[in-house]
């Protein structure tokens, strides 16, 4: 279910549609492809109205979440399918089709795999075949539905980098759907965040991370804690102490401040906005993660490399070095 939304995709860009499951991102992708019909609204391709255009004539390349490869056809036949399906007049010569299939096999680094069948390929290889099949028809826009969803972690990472390379090489306008923040932020030129059928924010990965437009976007992009605060004179204060966070224009009175783990710093109690007792501390991928339990029992996640010197049970103060307030 989608609500009113308007999204502009720029030529040649790689746009990530990010949202939790059920947010309508796949529906939006299918509406763009012409696989689902919107009840209202229009789909424009470079100024041409494609709303009434049947899926066959939209010239989209769609990569399905589970690839939807044709099981009974060889890899080469899968890739050639779109070309062979054309009317005789528009169909390239047999030799030309063969050449293009060969080029695409090179592109997806599966030269020599043309005679295999989908069941003989690994998940990552199938994914690449699905991509080649979609690219073969030279689509105006490439649409990928959870392209890495069904793959294990290492293959995912390799394929991500590879997809970015392919995109940079071909300049193909691409929209992909994902529920994985890291994936969207790493891969996209711009990210569109969807939630419950609404478009929450569109921007570069940096923009959406630095200036999330709503609590939903903020929460979806990573861990945060919520702090009762007071807006006063352009600044946000917590427990009477000023923070570096700016208050939204004209805001005066109680506000909610959202703070990321790395915007908290362990300090002495007399300079702190918040306080508690260190409960546990562990290191993960070069980051020091400390869990601090407040007096009320709430556990706050903190990322502070210097925090390791505090042993569990030690009372500490927390300084807020940044955060987000929404009007």
């Amino acid at each position: 279910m989608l609500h009113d939304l308007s999204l502009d995709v720029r030529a040649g860009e790689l746009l990530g549609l990010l949202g939790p499951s059920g947010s309508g991102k796949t529906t939006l992708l299918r509406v763009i492809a012409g696989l689902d019909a919107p009840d209202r609204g229009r789909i424009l391709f470079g100024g041409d109205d494609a709303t009434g255009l049947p899926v066959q004539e939209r010239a989209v390349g769609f990569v399905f979440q589970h690839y939807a490869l044709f099981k009974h056809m060889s890899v080469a036949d899968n890739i050639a399918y779109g070309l062979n399906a054309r009317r005789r007049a528009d169909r390239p010569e047999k030799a030309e089709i063969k050449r293009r299939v060969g080029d695409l096999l090179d592109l997806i680094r599966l030269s020599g795999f043309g005679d295999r069948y989908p069941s003989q390929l690994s998940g990552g290889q199938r994914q690449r075949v699905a991509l080649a099949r979609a690219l073969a028809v030279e689509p105006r826009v490439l649409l990928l539905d959870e392209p890495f969803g069904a793959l294990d972690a290492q293959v995912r990472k390799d394929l991500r980098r590879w997809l970015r390379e392919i995109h940079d090489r071909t300049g193909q306008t691409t929209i992909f759907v994902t529920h994985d923040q890291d994936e969207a932020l790493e891969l996209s030129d711009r990210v569109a965040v969807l939630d419950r059928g609404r478009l929450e924010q569109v921007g570069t990965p940096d923009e959406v991370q630095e200036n999330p437009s709503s609590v939903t976007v903020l929460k979806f992009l990573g861990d945060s804690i919520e702090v009762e605060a007071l807006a006063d004179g352009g600044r946000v204060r917590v427990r009477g102490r000023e923070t570096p966070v700016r208050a939204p224009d004209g805001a005066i009175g109680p506000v909610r401040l959202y703070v990321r783990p790395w915007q908290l710093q362990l300090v002495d109690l007399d300079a702190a906005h918040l306080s508690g007792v260190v409960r546990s501390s562990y290191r993960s991928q070069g980051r020091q993660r400390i869990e601090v339990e407040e007096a009320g029992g709430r556990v706050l996640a903190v990322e502070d490399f210097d925090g390791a010197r505090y042993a569990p049970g030690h009372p500490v103060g927390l300084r807020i070095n940044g955060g987000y307030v929404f009007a």
Partner: protein
Amino acid sequence: MSEIFSPVSVPAAAAPATGEGPGVRALLIGIAVVFLGLFLVLPLFAVFAQAFSRGIDAYLDAFREPDAWSAIRLTLTVAAIAVPFNLVFGIAASWSIAKFEFPGKSLLITLIDLPFSVSPVVSGLIYVLLFGSQGLFGGWLQAHGIQILFALPGIVLATIFVTFPFVARELIPLMQEQGSSEEEAALTLGASGLHAFWTVTLPNIRWGLLYSVLLCNARAMGEFGAVSVVSGHIRGLTNTIPLHVEILYNEYNFVAAFAVASLLAALALVTLVLKSVLEWRYAGDLAGGRAH
């Protein structure tokens, strides 16, 4: 420590924790095999034994009779009409039911399955009630000189009725399992609906289709009760193979009866073998992954 970790020697004949002991196991296997052998396989064996009980010449005599040949011809004709009819119906029904969402689906499936729960005799009776001389359309048909009952059309109709669900009930779950994404992929690649059907859907359901046509055909050629009611038993004209067998048997012409019956038994055997081969080799391409 040593007590806990000392290697435990497993006596070879110990009753496994989650199975039966070898004795019980052998007993159960024995019961099943003997029971099935006596009960299911012996009758099949009996057909061939009786058919050849007076030698090959007596066996072949059964087929020197013109009535036998006309029965074979009629059975082939009926199957040649009924099976393709149900094939086309089954594809249309499963396409509309499996690929689309609409209310009342399960009722529709129940209605398609209905002929399986109707007695064969009743299946014949309903056509007698429609087309018989005292039937609903009987008078009209007689006035226009159209013969349905006791003729080929009646036999074909009754056969179509009893074999109606075969193809649809195999293809509906199969297509539902397969979903629509391959067809959608074909459409995004520019294929027309018909092209997608021929190049994607049909190859995907081909084994299920073959499987159901096999079973449908076996039943169409072997149907007895329903056909018996609508055929009128006119020798050389409206007797199918099973009806011909009945007549021979009732005339105490046992060798000929079993000789002709051996044709149907052979058909059943071939059907069973092909069906099993399909289940073993292409389980994944049949509805519900019919692996036994």
